């Protein structure tokens, strides 16, 4: 339990962390790819804003630059590109639902609980963005990203799951270790670019073969 009343900054930071988790949970209720891309853009905007706030409130201008790069790529350029890519095929992409939406969200909520419990056992440092929630939020977003990739066995959806998971990592890097080298943030962005290239290749195959992008189509390589 917190021993003092929340300041406005703490409350705002906590709310932003919760909003991040909510965008991650919202993935489960979307059954079309463009909606998932939009959600990713919204989540990226939140992460970019948090990065900018951490940078401006004393952790260095490199974080502000990183926030601007994030906003440019992950909020505008890449989502727009991905939306254009799937414009023609999104009607054909059916997201398989292994577990229904309600149960999926309950499972994700349980994972969030696990993330909070794990984080609460660690006396991690004061400071950061939202000290009590930084690690928990990072873990929750990563766990839910994994869950989404498992419960929606579709190659395009899994790329988006990876992208959101990377948002969680980016959030963790900025809030837990703002002193980490700039290059970590930049490499995370390169990861995103590679994932988007993979996304583009998958869509191209989808168009060429008129197949579904289910990973079950990828079955040549087995143990």
């Amino acid at each position, binding site marked *: 339990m917190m021993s003092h009343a929340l300041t406005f900054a703490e409350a705002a930071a906590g709310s932003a962390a919760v909003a991040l988790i909510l965008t991650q949970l919202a993935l489960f209720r979307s059954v079309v790819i463009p909606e998932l891309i939009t959600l990713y853009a919204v989540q990226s905007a939140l992460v970019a804003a948090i990065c900018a706030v951490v940078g401006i409130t004393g952790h260095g201008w490199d974080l502000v630059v990183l926030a601007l790069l994030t906003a440019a790529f992950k909020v505008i350029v890449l989502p727009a590109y991905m939306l254009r890519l799937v414009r023609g095929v999104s009607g054909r992409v059916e997201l398989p639902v292994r577990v229904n939406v309600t149960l999926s969200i309950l499972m994700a909520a349980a994972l969030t609980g696990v993330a909070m419990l794990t984080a609460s056992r660690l006396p*991690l440092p004061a400071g950061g963005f939202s000290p009590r929630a930084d*690690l928990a939020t990072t873990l929750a977003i990563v766990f839910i990203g994994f869950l989404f*990739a498992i419960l929606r066995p579709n190659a395009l959806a899994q790329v988006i799951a990876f992208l959101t998971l990377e948002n969680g990592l980016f959030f963790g890097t900025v809030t*837990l270790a703002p*002193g*980490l080298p700039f290059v*970590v943030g930049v490499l995370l962005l390169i990861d995103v670019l*590679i994932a988007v290239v993979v996304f583009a290749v998958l869509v191209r195959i989808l168009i060429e073969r008129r197949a579904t992008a289910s990973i079950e189509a990828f079955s040549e*390589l087995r143990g």
Partner: protein
Amino acid sequence: MSWLSWLVLAIPGAAAIVSFLVPSRFGRPLTAVAGIAGAAVMIWDAFGNVEPRLDPLSALFLLPVAIVYGAAGVYTAWYVKAESRDDPAGERYRREFLVLTNGFACAEALVPLLSNMAGLWVALETTTILAALLVRLQGTDAALEAAWKYILIASCGLAIGLIGVLVLYAAAAPVLGAHHVPEWSAYLAVAQRLDPDAVRLAFILALIGFGTKMGLAPMHTWLPDAHGAGPTPTSAMLSGVLLSDALYVILRFAGITNAAVGATMSHRLFVIVGLLSLLIGAFFLLRQHDIKRMLAYSSIEHMGVVAIGLAFGAPLAIAGALLHVLNHAASKSLAFFAAGRLVERFGTREIAAIRGGVQALPVSGALFALAGLALAGFPPFGIFRSEIMILAGGFGGGSAWIAGIVAALLAVAFAGLVRWVTVTSTGNAAEPIEVGERTYVPAAAMLVGFVVVLGLGLVVPAPLGTLIARAGQTFERSP
């Protein structure tokens, strides 16, 4: 870093840049020369007295890069020509291949040279990106699928590894300051002042995350695909070096964890992932029908053996595990190079269709058979020596039950490997197959691995023995 370490990076780095700028007829010999020169400089850096000297663990883990890059540079110079057509598309393929291979070697050599934990993650992630691009170059559907699976699984694994780095960073912030440079040596120095739970969590995350990259079960599922579907030199570099690079990062975490909370936890976790990897590797070896996937499962098995050696904790077992890393790098790169020659000659990776390998390719086929025997743990090869050291450390250190299980699983792996090696090497080819080597360039590359794995079986040179002993002490320190 010393100027020599910078040179270690500069050689493959410069070779990558120049290969991009010049036609492949110049890039190919350049890559071969860079491989040999790079290997020589890496060995010099590991054993030389150039200040500031490398930490023993860093020096030791530079050796697998030297062994494999030295051979892969020469092999690649031949391979890209043999694998591509004489047209503009072929030239583009060759150039891309040479650039990526040299770049990949540069990133692999960077890992043991870095002291910054976040930098380690950056270097490993760079290897993932470059390796996936190399696997993709094969252009087949299987290669696309393998590259996709590799990127997704390895990056997700590394994501968990990065959280491990973040947790460690956050745990050290109260001691070293909120803006400290995350050097492993600094963490090691203050290990006992770090929060034990945070250190434990960081190690678990690192073992899962970087263990994915190392091919430890149950996170190994990408490995047979990427190693099987990738081009031969890439498979050799993935298996011989990248797995050991990931192990190097895990050992840095293990050193900090052992110093902070004692070695019991890391030993227990190493036993679990080691036995599981050995079990999966050994039994999947029995039912393989693809020659390169067979070698990939053998990698999982051998990474399991290394993890168990680390788990036993006895100095003999740890020395065996570290020696095993070198033996595996040498014999596995040899095996992949030779298998690549068989696949090229027989036009298939199906074990059932490859018969009379020694007859068709007297040198490469024979070297494949010898590599298979070395990997199976046959004397007098180095793997026999390191496995005996690990088992003796286990039996002598009070882990007799586990050592017994390991010996039984090694027998299963032995049976699988020897069976497939015998099938592919002996007898006569079913269809008329061209007989003779045609070129001895790839065989020359294979000789590197063969000489190393045979030499390490016969004798461990004193400087190497000392280096291994000192490297073991860097992470096996309790509070």
